[in-house]
């Protein structure tokens, strides 16, 4: 039983399909312990999984025992890692909904009754055809892979000799390509920056308040222990501003010691 890392299935363009059938039969043995190991590449999507369950159960596709199939589908999906299971969840929800609809008593007129499974059956049949075509393509591709074309390219001549055929591409083509890139490009990650202006004025008021009570204050008097960066910056700028205006004197006893401030206005006017 091969176990693949949870690579996003949709991005895999290459794969090994020959292993498919034997893998299916052995999957049940590991499904219980498969919580973090996934055999996902085996299934190319929810319809593939559903079709395989129906085939395993050997039930009539026009009369799917939804309760049983939904239960098994959910069991398989719950064994998948979250990012891999995402693509299967919508189908899981759909199955549960159909199951509920079937349990509800139908309306009076049986003529008007529509099987809630009809749409699912249509999609499964459609998907089944895709699988048939895939079988044909797979056979053709294997036949072609078994033949080599000539790959030799004379090194000395090659570089200056690219495809010299004239190009038929217009500016309009180029521009619609720009358009496509813009439409298909992943949405840019936009960070909402909440503007939180520094409250320098508020910090200045706080410092002045401390100095009306005491002649000397220190950093911890005006900066709370759990202060946010903007608050710290505000106090810092406020101190510089007050020093510039000559209202306070800043001092540090030694490098990295707490900043102390004294009321310059008082000391100047004794």
């Amino acid at each position, binding site marked *: 039983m091969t176990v693949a890392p949870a690579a996003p299935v949709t991005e*895999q363009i*290459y*794969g090994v399909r020959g292993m498919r059938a034997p893998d299916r039969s052995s999957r049940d043995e590991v499904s219980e312990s498969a919580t973090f190991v996934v055999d996902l590449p085996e299934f190319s999507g929810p319809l593939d999984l559903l079709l395989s369950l129906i085939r395993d159960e050997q039930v009539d596709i026009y*009369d799917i025992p939804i309760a049983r199939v939904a239960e098994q589908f959910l069991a398989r999906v719950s064994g998948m890692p979250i990012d891999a299971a995402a*693509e299967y969840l919508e189908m899981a929800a759909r199955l549960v909904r159909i199951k509920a609809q079937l349990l509800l008593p139908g309306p009076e007129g049986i003529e008007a009754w529509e099987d809630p499974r009809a749409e699912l059956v249509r999609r499964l049949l*459609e998907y089944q*055809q*895709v699988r048939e075509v895939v079988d044909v393509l797979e056979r053709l591709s294997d036949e072609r892979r078994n033949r080599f074309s*000539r790959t030799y390219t004379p090194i000395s001549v090659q570089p200056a000799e690219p495809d010299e055929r004239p190009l038929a591409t217009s500016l309009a083509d180029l521009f619609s390509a720009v358009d496509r890139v813009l439409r298909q490009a992943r949405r840019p990650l936009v960070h909402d920056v909440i503007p939180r202006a520094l409250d320098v004025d508020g910090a200045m008021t706080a410092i002045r308040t401390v100095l009306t009570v005491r002649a000397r204050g220190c950093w911890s008097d005006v900066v709370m222990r759990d202060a946010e960066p903007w608050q710290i910056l505000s106090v810092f700028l406020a101190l510089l501003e007050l020093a510039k205006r000559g209202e306070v004197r800043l001092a540090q006893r030694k490098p990295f010691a707490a900043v102390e401030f004294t009321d310059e206005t008082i000391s100047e006017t004794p």
Partner: protein
Amino acid sequence: MKPLAKLLEAALFASARPVPNEALGQLDPESSAAAVAAALDEIREHYNSDGHGMELVTVGDGWQILTRPEYTEAIERAQLAARPQRLSAAALETLAIIAYRQPIGRAEIEEIRGVGAGAILKSLQERGLADVVGRGEGMGRPLLYGTTPVFLEHFALRHLGELPRADELAVALRPAQGNQQAAEQAARQPPRSV
């Protein structure tokens, strides 16, 4: 072989890709299309009857010389050439849908496969197997995808008509008409089991 056959052989031999009929016709401006066709027959005959390691096959609207499959294993063992990787099931399914329903939009492909198709479509485009062929009507004018000459090459097809016809498949692939009846029939029957 005759001079024209030798010239065509040299041109086919020199190319890693199939050479379109048109380009073959331009090799010797004095030769008619019938003469070119006859020379191609001569090469093919010669390869087959005289015992060569290669054969001449027709792919898309052109011709290509390929090795015979019986030598592949030995060549790969000697590490002189490697077979290309297989396409994944997801890629093949997407290609199958595109091949039969082109031009087709991404939303429709996703609807049929039940999973997102964005990354796969990009990879197929990158590999040259499918490409944007136009824009649909309706909201946002969705991009429509189709198969390319490389697709034919990859599966050694002359044209899409060589794929099984839709009505040869178990159920017709164009669901809008074909499957409707079956689905309606199913819809009218009350469930036998829940």
